[in-house]
C-alpha cells in the first residue's frame, strides 16, 4: 500500500460500516428498503440505522410492529414481486419466531416454483454472547441457516467485511443472511468510503502460517489471532483463516491451507455439537485426507444454553486460551 493511501486510510467502527453499507445500497437501488423493529426513528437498538430515516424517509425505512413472522413474510412477498428488501431481525434469537417463513418459504420458494420466483432479500441479524443477555439474546444459530438449501449465510468478523458483505448480499439475487456480532460493534477497521463488495463464498487468510490452520467464524477470528500470537511464542506458526462465508463454504481456501499446514482447528461461538465446525471437518477429511497429520480439533460452546451469570458466561464463550490448549493437545505440547 502506498503511503498516500495509508495516510488517507479511514478507520470506521463495525457499527458505522453497517450503516454505510446499507446507506449506499439504498442510494444505489431504488426498490430497496429496510424493514424491522425500531429501525426508523430509533435507528435500531444497536444504532446501525442512525440517520437513514432522515435521508430516505419512512417509505424506505419502515418501522414494523413486533411481528417477526410478518416481517420476514413482508420481505419474501416483496422480494418476489420486484423489491429488494433489507430485513432486520433485531436479535438472531428471534428467528425462532419466524423460522417457517425462513425455512419453508424464503429458502425454497424459488425451487418449489421451478425457478419461477427470484428472492433478492437481505436479512441483517445480530448474534453472539458476551453481554450477560442470557439464553434468548446471545445465540449463534448460523448452522441452523446453513442447513437450508436456498439461503446464503455470511458472518463478517470486522468492519471492512461487514460493509462489503452487506453490499454483496444486497446485490445478490438470492436470500442472504448477514449474521452480525454485537461484541464487535465498536471495533474499528479500515473501511474505504466507496462502495465495494466482499465476495460471498470466499474465506480470507488473515494471517499466513506454516504449522497449523485455525479456522475462525465471526468474532472468533480475533480469538484465533490472539491464540496464534501465544502459539508463535511457543514456536508454532499458525495460519488463521476467517471463514467469512458459511453458505456457500469456501472449501478451496480451506483445503489449500491444510495442504500447507497439515493440521487444523475450527473455532466458533456456537455450541460445538452440531455446529458448523463439524461440516468443515467433514469437508477437509473428504478433500484433503492425505494431507492431514492429525485429527482436526474443534472449539465451540459447551452443550448448554447461554448462561446469564458473568461467572458462567465467561467460561462458556470460547476464547484464545481454549484454542491454545486444544492446539497444544493436538501437537502433544
Amino acid at each position, binding site marked *: 500500500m502506498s503511503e498516500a493511501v495509508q495516510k488517507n486510510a479511514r478507520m470506521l467502527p463495525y457499527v458505522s460500516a453497517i450503516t454505510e453499507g446499507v446507506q449506499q445500497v439504498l442510494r444505489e437501488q431504488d426498490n430497496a428498503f429496510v424493514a424491522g423493529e425500531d429501525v426508523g426513528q430509533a435507528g435500531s437498538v444497536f444504532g446501525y440505522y442512525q440517520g437513514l430515516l432522515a435521508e430516505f424517509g419512512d417509505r424506505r425505512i419502515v418501522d414494523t*410492529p*413486533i411481528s417477526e413472522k410478518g416481517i420476514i413474510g413482508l420481505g419474501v412477498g416483496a422480494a418476489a414481486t420486484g423489491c429488494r428488501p433489507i430485513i432486520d431481525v433485531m436479535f438472531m434469537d428471534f428467528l425462532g*419466531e419466524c423460522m417457517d417463513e425462513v425455512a419453508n418459504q424464503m429458502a425454497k420458494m424459488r425451487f418449489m416454483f421451478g425457478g419461477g420466483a427470484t428472492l433478492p432479500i437481505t436479512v441483517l441479524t445480530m448474534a453472539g454472547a458476551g453481554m450477560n443477555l442470557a439464553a434468548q439474546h446471545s445465540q449463534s444459530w448460523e448452522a441452523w441457516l446453513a442447513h437450508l438449501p436456498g439461503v446464503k449465510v455470511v458472518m463478517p468478523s470486522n468492519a471492512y467485511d461487514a460493509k462489503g458483505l452487506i453490499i454483496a448480499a444486497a446485490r445478490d439475487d438470492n436470500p442472504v443472511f448477514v449474521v452480525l456480532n454485537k461484541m464487535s460493534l465498536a471495533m474499528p477497521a479500515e473501511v474505504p468510503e466507496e462502495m465495494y463488495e466482499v465476495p460471498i463464498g470466499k474465506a480470507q487468510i488473515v494471517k499466513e502460517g506454516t504449522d497449523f490452520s485455525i479456522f475462525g467464524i465471526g468474532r472468533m477470528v480475533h480469538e484465533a489471532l490472539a491464540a496464534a500470537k501465544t502459539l508463535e511464542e511457543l514456536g508454532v506458526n499458525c495460519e488463521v483463516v476467517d471463514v467469512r462465508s458459511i453458505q456457500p463454504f469456501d472449501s478451496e481456501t480451506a483445503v489449500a491451507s491444510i495442504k500447507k499446514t497439515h493440521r487444523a482447528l475450527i473455532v466458533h461461538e456456537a455450541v460445538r455439537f452440531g455446529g458448523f465446525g463439524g461440516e468443515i471437518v467433514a469437508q477437509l477429511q473428504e478433500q484433503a485426507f492425505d494431507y492431514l497429520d492429525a485429527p482436526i480439533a474443534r472449539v465451540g460452546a459447551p452443550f448448554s444454553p447461554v448462561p446469564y451469570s458473568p461467572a458462567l458466561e465467561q467460561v462458556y464463550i470460547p476464547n484464545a486460551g481454549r484454542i491454545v490448549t486444544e492446539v497444544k493437545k493436538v501437537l502433544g505440547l
Partner: protein
Amino acid sequence: MAKKISTKVLTDLHLNMVRIRRFEEEAGKLMEDGKIPGALHLYVGQEAVASGVMAHLNNQDQITSTHRGHGHVIAKGGQFSPMFAELYGKATGYCKGKGGSMHISNMALGILGANGIVGGGPPIAMGAAFSNKFRKSKQVSVTFFGDGASNEGSFHEAANMAALYQLPCVFVCENNGFGEYTAQSNHQAVTDVADRAAGYGMPGVVVDGMDVMAVYEAAEAAVKRARSGAGPTLLECKTYRYYDHVGVRGMGLTYRTDEEVEAWKQRDAIESFEALLVKQGVMTQKKLDNVYARVDADIQEGIAFAESSPFPTEDDLLEDVYFVGAKS
C-alpha cells in the same frame, strides 16, 4: 372505593406496589453502578397492574411474565434475596444465576418465567390453563404481555385456543403506550388492544392501569370467570413506564415528551392510592412511613444476601440442561 374490601387486602395492595417500586429503583441503581450486569427492563410506573391482578391469585395459580418481569414476580410472592441474587448472577438466585432478569422464575410460586421473547408468555399460559382444566384443578393462569407483544402471532394463537377450549386463563395486556421506542399508534391500528378479544370470542375489558382498585375489581371478575370454567378474558390496563425501555433514564428521551411523562406521574398509582388510604382512615402517614422502612430493610437484606452469595462455578454449566434424576 368499593364497599366490602378488607383492610388487609388494601394494605397488601399498597405493600406490593411499594415493594415493586422500591425494588426496581434499587435494582436500577445497582445496574447503573455496574453491580448488576446485563439489561434490566424496569417496571416503575406499572405497579398497580401486577399488584391488582395478583391479589386474586394463590400460589397454585400460574403466571407468565415478560422481559419487564420483576413486578410480576414480586406481586406473586417473590422474595428479594433470591431475586437480587439472580440479578447479580449468583448461585443462590431463583434460577441459580442461569436466567437473570429476563428469565427470573419460581415454579413453587407459580411463576412460569419472565421471558426474553416478546409474546413468549401467552401460549405457555394457555398451555398451563389447558393443564388446569385437564387435571380438573381449580387453578387459573394469567399471562402478562405488552401492547407491543399483542402484535406477535403467538398472542393471537393463544387467545384463539384459550377461547376455543374455554380455558381458565386471563390475558392481561399492560398497555404502556410503547413497544421499545415505538409508540402504540405506530405499531397497531387499534387504540384498545381489548378490541381484539371480540375476534376470538372472549370479553375484552379496558381498565385504568394507574388505579389499583380499578385493576383489582376488573381482575376479580376475570379471574372469577376463569376459575368458574366460563373461559378467558382479555383485560387491557392502560399504564405507563416511567423509565426508558432499558435502564433508569426517564426524561429527555427522543421518542416521548417530558410533559407526557409528567402527566402520567401526576396520576401515579402509589401516590393516589396512598392519598385515598389516608383519606379513608385505613392508613396514617406514620403507617405509610413504616411500610417504606420495612420494605427498605428488606431490600438492604436482599442486596447483602446477593453480594455475599457465591457465583456459580463451571461445574454448574452443564447442570439442568436435561432432567437426569429418577423418573417421576
